[in-house]
């Protein structure tokens, strides 16, 4: 009888531990807790590291783990973009991810042209570019 309760309590404790384990596992790794390799990869984030929440730290550690498998050009891009990306507001990052997901849906053939299209867009006269992105209209003007 008591054994049944004990088993039950153990099950619940194990469940609770299981639910918490990612947090404990990821914890709040301080900069000093990272491996030398991770510190080297994430060096552009060093100054901001303490301000990052645990989820974002874990994500960056995940990216640092992928880093050795990236091509040199990709590694260079990561190094260049990392800080700017981390300094965006959460809303901007969310927006960028949404747009990425939408753009990534197109065929690989079209995706290959994205770089060209970006160059083409940037070559447009400023007023034409502005026409494509009218400033956010107040609610009353919105249809």
């Amino acid at each position, binding site marked *: 009888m008591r054994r049944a309760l004990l088993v039950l309590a153990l099950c619940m404790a194990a469940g609770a531990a299981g639910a918490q384990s990612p947090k404990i596992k990821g914890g709040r790794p301080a900069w000093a807790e990272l491996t030398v390799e991770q510190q080297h990869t994430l060096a552009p984030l060093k100054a901001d590291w303490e301000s990052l929440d645990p*989820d974002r730290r874990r994500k960056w550690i995940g990216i640092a783990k992928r880093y050795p498998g990236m091509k040199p050009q990709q590694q260079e891009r990561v190094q260049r973009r990392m800080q700017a990306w981390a300094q965006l507001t959460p809303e901007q990052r969310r927006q960028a991810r949404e747009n990425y997901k939408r753009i990534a849906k197109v065929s690989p053939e079209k995706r290959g042209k994205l770089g060209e299209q*970006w160059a083409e867009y940037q070559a447009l006269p400023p007023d034409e570019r502005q026409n494509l992105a009218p400033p956010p209209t107040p609610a009353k003007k919105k249809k």
Partner: protein
Amino acid sequence: MSPAKRPEQAMNEFQFGDKIRHILNQGLSLDSRKAARLQAARELALARKRPEPVGVLASAGVWAGNMVGDFGGWTGVSLRLLVPVAMLLIGFGAIYTWQQNQRAAEVEEIDAQLLTGDLPIDAYLDRGFQNFLKTRAAEE
């Protein structure tokens, strides 16, 4: 759940029940000495029980105990109620953890793509470019 009882087993139970009914119907014939001893033993037991404090909590406990007793005691409750609840909680915990991990993995994947992709991050934040792409897609 137990399988369906066999007919002879059911019959045995019936006969056994019948015997008990007979014995009960005969009543208990005790001589006065035995009755007096039983009475004394009962008084003694009651006297020992009386000093227990009977507060509101205790009454509630007794009431709860009686209610619980209907279900086969605390162990019965633990097995019939707590185990499914615990399983449910563990299940929800596991699903929640799994979903969080999935979401974290998805964000990591997208961020890795954004950081390494051909397009600069500005391209994904530029509403004009997003509209430019939409216009182009519509034209094609």
